[in-house]
Structure formats: C-alpha cells, structure tokens
C-alpha cells in the first residue's frame, strides 16, 4: 500500500487455443496466474472473475494441474450493450507441476474472483535431495 504504487493497466484477454470446437457458446480465456513457492507449498493464484465457486473444476492427474471455471451467462434484459471492453467467458488453464504433490492436501479458496490453490509437496518429493559424491 505504498504511495508510489504502480498504476494498474488493463491486461489483454488471452483466449485458450482451440483444437476442437467447444460445445459451450461463450469464449474461453486463459486466466492470469501467479505461481510461487513458500517452504513446502506451491501456491497458484489465478484471476477468474465472474465465476461461482461451485462452477470451478480442479484436477491433478499425472502432474498436470488443470483448472476450469464455467461462467453462468447473465442476461441483462431490457438493456442493450452500448460499450464493450471485455468479454466474460469460461476459464481454462493447465500447468505441469514438476514436484510430487500430496493430492489429498490440496486446498482451494475462491474469493473476490481470485482462485488460490495451495499444493503441498508430497513426503517423497521433500526427501529427494541427493548428495553428489566426488568419484
């Protein structure tokens, strides 16, 4: 909250590249993400505004973390759109996680349009450091 805080800018909406057509009519965007590691946890923070928390699907399979968010399209009856700078849509993004993750301890919190995932490293991953001996 410093006084010299940077002025925020609008970030371009990035579309998910499609190989096959989607069955849902709305567009699908790549959510902006921050990923950081604190101690034994990996945190993934994603901006997914406009999604209900029960419309988020998170899967972790073979080290690939996949997050999907489905938009409930809202109609503004009796109003015509006169100005448009962004489009609401679904979200989808996948990450390959290099560390072993303890699947049972993954935590997900969705608040104010931001999804925060905490992925704790699995026990075997923690102990994987191998000392290299001089031969």
């Amino acid at each position, binding site marked *: *909250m410093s006084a010299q*805080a*940077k*002025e*925020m*800018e*609008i*970030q*371009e909406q990035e579309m998910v590249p499609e190989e096959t057509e989607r069955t849902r009519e709305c567009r699908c965007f790549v959510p*902006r*993400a*921050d*990923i*950081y*590691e*604190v*101690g034994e946890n*990996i945190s993934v*923070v994603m*901006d*997914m*505004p*406009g*999604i*209900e*928390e029960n419309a988020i699907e998170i899967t972790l399979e073979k080290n690939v973390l996949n997050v999907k968010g489905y938009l409930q399209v809202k109609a*503004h009856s*009796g*109003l*015509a*759109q*006169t*100005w*448009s*700078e*962004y*489009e*609401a849509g679904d979200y989808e993004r996948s990450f390959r996680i290099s560390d072993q993750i303890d699947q049972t301890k993954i935590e997900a919190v*969705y608040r*104010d*349009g*931001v999804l925060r995932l905490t992925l704790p490293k699995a026990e075997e991953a923690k102990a994987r450091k191998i000392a290299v001996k001089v031969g």
Partner: protein
Amino acid sequence: MYRRYRTPSLWHEMNRLQRDMNRLFGENEQERRTAPSFPAINIWANEESALVTAEIPGVAKDALELNVTGDTLEISGERAPDDLPEDARYHRRERTYGKFNRSIQLPYSVDVNKVKATFKNGVLEINLPRVEAEKPKKIAVKAM
C-alpha cells in the same frame, strides 16, 4: 467517452471482430497509448437506466470507491500484492497490482440516490437510473 444510445447487436459483433483482428495482427503503439485505464468496463443501457460492469478480481469490497456526480462515474481503488514471506520464490508472475482510477461519462445524468452497486466474485455491477426529469416522455399529438 464515445456515446451511443441504442446500438444494434451487430455493432457489438463488429467491435468484437475488430478487436480480434487487432489482437491477431498485434496491437500497434497508437492503440496502446489510447488504451483506457483499468478496469475494463462494459455498459448496458436503455432510456431509463444504465448498467456498468467491471472485472476487478482480487480487490476487497471495502477497497473500492465509487463516486457519481451528474453524468460521471468514477471507480477507484487499489489491488494490493500478496503479502509473502521473504523466502518465497516466484515461478510465474502475470497478475498486476497497484492503484486504479477511472472516470466514465454516461449518456445521461444519474439519479445519485438510486444508484445501486454490487460486487460479487470480482465483478462490479453498478445500476445507474436516469434522472426522472430527463427521461423521455411520450407527447400526444392533438388533432386541431
């Protein structure tokens, strides 16, 4: 701000196409300079009221400030960065933080007392009813 009262949906489609084309061919410098400030907004309107929506994820409700004067709406606030311990290591950093302030000129004067705003799941929705006196009135044509 560009004003338009009722627009056929075709225009929306055209705008969308144009934006897509710009994105496809890379944004030019000119466009960058004229880019509106954060947050991106959408406006829906009819003769009686306007609805402004904005995606502002990661900002607490209390950190948002709305001001309406006459036909101008001002949205300001700040998105604070995550408070991380020193040993945190970033793998990826795509989300931006900082202050924002945006003024929007609406197509008509707003009845300030009737403005309603909701903020849910990172989406701000502001309902701005038009001042009663300015609403269009049907005028009966009398036969002479």
